[in-house]
């Protein structure tokens, strides 16, 4: 009784029972499975998109994200074609014709900072790194969280105990304080920050939530059916448990983006992050030059502060709207 990998399906069904139409059989032979799958995926995306658009919250969040996405994309174009680098460069630019910080004007739409650098340029320049930071942290979080959550739930026992106690430990650590301590031990830059946030979140709370969801999937009868069919542990985890976890992981990706952007802002504000320019850095500059509580120079801190709030809120809103797409119980109808 050994398995032959490429054995053909034997003709098992007696012909008098098979009523498969010859035309249908020929049709099946021609139909490409990947094309069918692509069509099904398109259909489900379309259906989910329609549910998503029914909710204004999600659309507001998405338009804010798209708006900042455009800002990020526009910056290199503006620097290359419209703005002179000597004046508009976000770090080294300086306009010698004005007294700084200068209020918003036709030349500098959002004014300049105390060092004479254009604030709009700084804002746009920072946007792309905020996005990358958020995305890297989020991807790392859900990859770790999904893998560990699925494995811990599926195998149970000491594997489960190990990862869950580790998760408890990570949750107990106040992550901002930990990041501040880490910044004293080695130099924190954006990629490192993204990795640390990803790992902290991936081994911490996200894992517990994903694992609890995986536990409810693991006991479903279709998992037993897959085992009776001869499916290996890897087959069951990859084909049955993780696909059913994906909606939830996607949701937690959105929330991690928010966390990452927020953490960056806080660390930059304390001057603990080795980064040339970021939204947190803009606030730090304002604070270190003594303009932070000066209402007359509002343009120094409103653009960056508002951007942090808006983008964090946007990802959170999109997450909430996706939650409604995933959990039919949350829908109003």
């Amino acid at each position, binding site marked *: *009784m050994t*398995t032959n990998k490429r054995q053909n399906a034997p003709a*098992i069904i007696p012909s008098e029972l098979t009523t498969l139409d010859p035309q*249908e059989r020929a049709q099946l032979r021609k139909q490409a499975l990947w094309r069918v799958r692509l069509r099904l995926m398109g259909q489900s995306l379309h259906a989910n998109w329609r549910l998503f658009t029914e909710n204004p919250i999600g659309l507001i969040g998405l338009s804010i994200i798209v708006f900042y996405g455009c800002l990020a994309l526009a910056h290199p174009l503006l620097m290359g074609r419209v703005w002179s680098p000597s004046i508009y460069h976000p770090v080294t630019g300086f306009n010698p014709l004005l007294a700084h910080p200068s209020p918003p004007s036709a030349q500098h739409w959002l004014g300049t900072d105390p060092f004479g650098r254009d604030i709009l340029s700084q804002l746009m320049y920072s946007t792309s790194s905020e996005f990358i930071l958020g995305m890297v942290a989020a991807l790392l979080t859900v990859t770790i969280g999904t893998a560990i959550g699925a494995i811990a739930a599926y195998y149970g026992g000491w594997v489960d105990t190990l990862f869950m106690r580790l998760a408890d430990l990570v949750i107990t650590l106040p992550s901002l304080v930990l990041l501040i301590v880490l910044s004293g031990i080695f130099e924190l830059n954006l990629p490192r920050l993204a990795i640390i946030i990803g790992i902290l979140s991936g081994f911490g709370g996200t894992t517990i939530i994903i694992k609890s969801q995986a536990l409810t999937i693991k006991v479903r009868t279709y998992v037993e059916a897959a085992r009776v*069919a001869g499916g290996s542990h890897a087959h069951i985890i990859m084909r049955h448990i993780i*696909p*059913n976890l994906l909606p939830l992981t996607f949701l937690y990706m959105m929330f991690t983006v928010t966390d990452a952007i927020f953490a960056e802002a806080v660390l930059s504000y304390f001057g603990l992050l080795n980064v040339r320019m970021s939204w947190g850095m803009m606030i730090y500059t304002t604070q270190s030059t003594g303009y932070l509580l000066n209402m007359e120079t509002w343009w120094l801190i409103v653009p960056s502060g508002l951007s942090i709030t808006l983008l964090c809120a946007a990802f959170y809103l999109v997450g909430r709207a996706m939650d409604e797409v995933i959990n039919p119980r949350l829908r109003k109808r």
Partner: protein
Amino acid sequence: MTVTAPLVRVEGLRKLFPLNQGLLRPATSFIHAVDGVSFAIAPGKSLALVGESGSGKTTTGKLLVRLLHPTDGQIVMRLNDADVAVTTLKGDRVRAFRRHVQMIFQDPYESLNPRRTIYDTVAEPLYVQGIGNVLDRQERVAELLTLVGLTPPSTFMFRFPHELSGGQRQRVAIARALVINPAFVVADEPTSMLDVSIRASVMQLMQRLAEHLHVTYLYITHDLAVARYMSDRLAVMYLGKIVEMGDTEEVLHHPQHPYTQALLSAVPVPDPGWKRTPIEIKGGVSKPVNPPPRCRFYDRCPLAAKICEDNDHPPLEDKSAGHYVACYRA
């Protein structure tokens, strides 16, 4: 028993579930879900396992398909003219064993993965066993869908379970169980979650497929009428023990164990004028946690006597030509 070698032979099968197990503390009480069950199933002679909730029917079924490992006992199956000791299989041999033995589950709303198409679900046994290429599998799935009455197959293959009705889903589950042409199928109450109106058609389908595809069922049910329709032989379970076993008609017409008699007297008869002598049993079914060494049915039995209390659970004895009863008083 029968002249031909049995397809399935079960001897002294036991499954205990620990109740109060701690990380370092061994369990002291156990649920005796299946406690010393022995039976044989001849090829083509489906056996129905009847009993109320908690009698260990489903556990027995899961032990047979190796979803659970027995605490004790032997399961030997005759597959491809070779005896296979199911309980000691390892690694690749388990997967090879699963080509011959499949299971149909009770709830068609739970047994199909909502994120996979009907094709993926039905083709799964072929896929994990590495049988055929994509085109072969598509064709085979289409054949099976036609066979279980989901026609034309092309309209069903790439749908998702939530687009089908309960009866259609159970047909998909049947197709999945039969797609690799198993010799033996454990059917765990496949019709109990279905509407009465479609129950009969699903049972007819299973009967028809059994005849033509040479499948033998272990049919788990709590419904005596269903058992009578679906099986050649019948075994009645009570708290992890088989109390009576024999040819279905014989057991139903001449029940000898007081529990079987009580079960039969509880079957509703569609005749208001029908008079019968009700056989009263006391109390309700309890959980078989650390059962005392006496007849399992002692607490509820109308015939209970001292012999039933002083001795262990009675052995299954051949009372007349293959009609086995486990009772001191019968």
